[in-house]
């Protein structure tokens, strides 16, 4: 039991589950980073849909990073760096899977099924 108490004091708020401050900062940042993209889509202050799409992606990436640092407490030193390494590796696989699938399928649709496409692609000779 005394070992457990020592562990508490040694653990403190430096690492592990983070401090109250890190949760509150994360919550505030996430709130802002959530509000802006919803506002962009619902109030339509920006006319160009492509620009809005890019902004949505940027805000999503920023918020994921905020959650990773403030809520999931991924640091360079956690578990001797293995947590961060696994996270980075997963991110690489995630990007390859999603971007690769969409890229390949878009080109398949464009090049092989022109009659079935709607809009801009059907004009290709």
């Amino acid at each position, binding site marked *: 039991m005394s070992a457990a108490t020592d562990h508490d004091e040694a653990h403190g708020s430096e690492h592990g589950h983070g401090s109250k401050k890190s949760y509150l900062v994360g*919550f505030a940042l996430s709130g802002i980073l959530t509000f802006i993209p919803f506002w962009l889509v619902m109030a339509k202050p920006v006319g160009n849909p492509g620009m809005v799409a890019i902004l949505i*992606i940027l805000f999503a990436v920023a918020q*994921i990073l905020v959650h990773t640092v403030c809520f*999931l407490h991924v640091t360079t030193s956690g578990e001797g760096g293995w947590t961060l390494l696994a996270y980075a590796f997963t991110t690489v696989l995630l990007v390859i899977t999603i971007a690769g699938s969409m890229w390949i399928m878009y080109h398949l649709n464009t090049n092989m099924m022109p009659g079935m496409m709607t809009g801009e692609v059907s004009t290709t000779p």
Partner: protein
Amino acid sequence: MATTVPHAGFDRDTFHLVEEDAHDHGSAHASPVLLGFWIYLMSDALLFAALFATYGVLSTSFAGGPAPRDIFELELVALNTAILLVSSITYGFAMLAMDKGRQTAVKGWLALTALLGMSFVSIELYEFGVLIGEGATPQRSGFLSAFFTLVGTHGLHVTVGIIWIGIMLVQVGKHGLNAINRRRLTCLSMFWHFLDVIWIGVFSFVYLMGMVR
């Protein structure tokens, strides 16, 4: 004697001796369980990557059916996003209370987190019910199949998280904040925050992008 002891109990004892010993030497997280659970979460992220890729490919395959613009209610999504975000910080407060050893506070924050999770799932089920009532069923088009699979899988994860919180409320009530329960609560914390990260992807790429397109 040692050979007749049931293995599970024996291993558990050994495990905790090792854990506490390592903590005394000042290493951050000596328990291999936390890293193992993290690896599980990363593999779960890959599962979601496959579902996001499927949705990305099928998101314009309407088959003459409804498009996102026709069926999505952004107000509901915004409400759900807010609920999940607040539940993330209430779970964070449960972890802070756990660090201080305040059992009642831990249980209170956990119960609040579970209630928020239940509101989230209820609103999502309501949304699904409305969609299906309008004829926007998973069978209607490739877009809707991918949508229900992706959002439904996330909702299922949240449901499992709520059940896990319920189990932990019983465990903490029965055995207090011992080393095993602390470890489990830490794993659940990662799980819960991870689901919020996935939801960022869902509301950004499914709902918001769908309304823009």
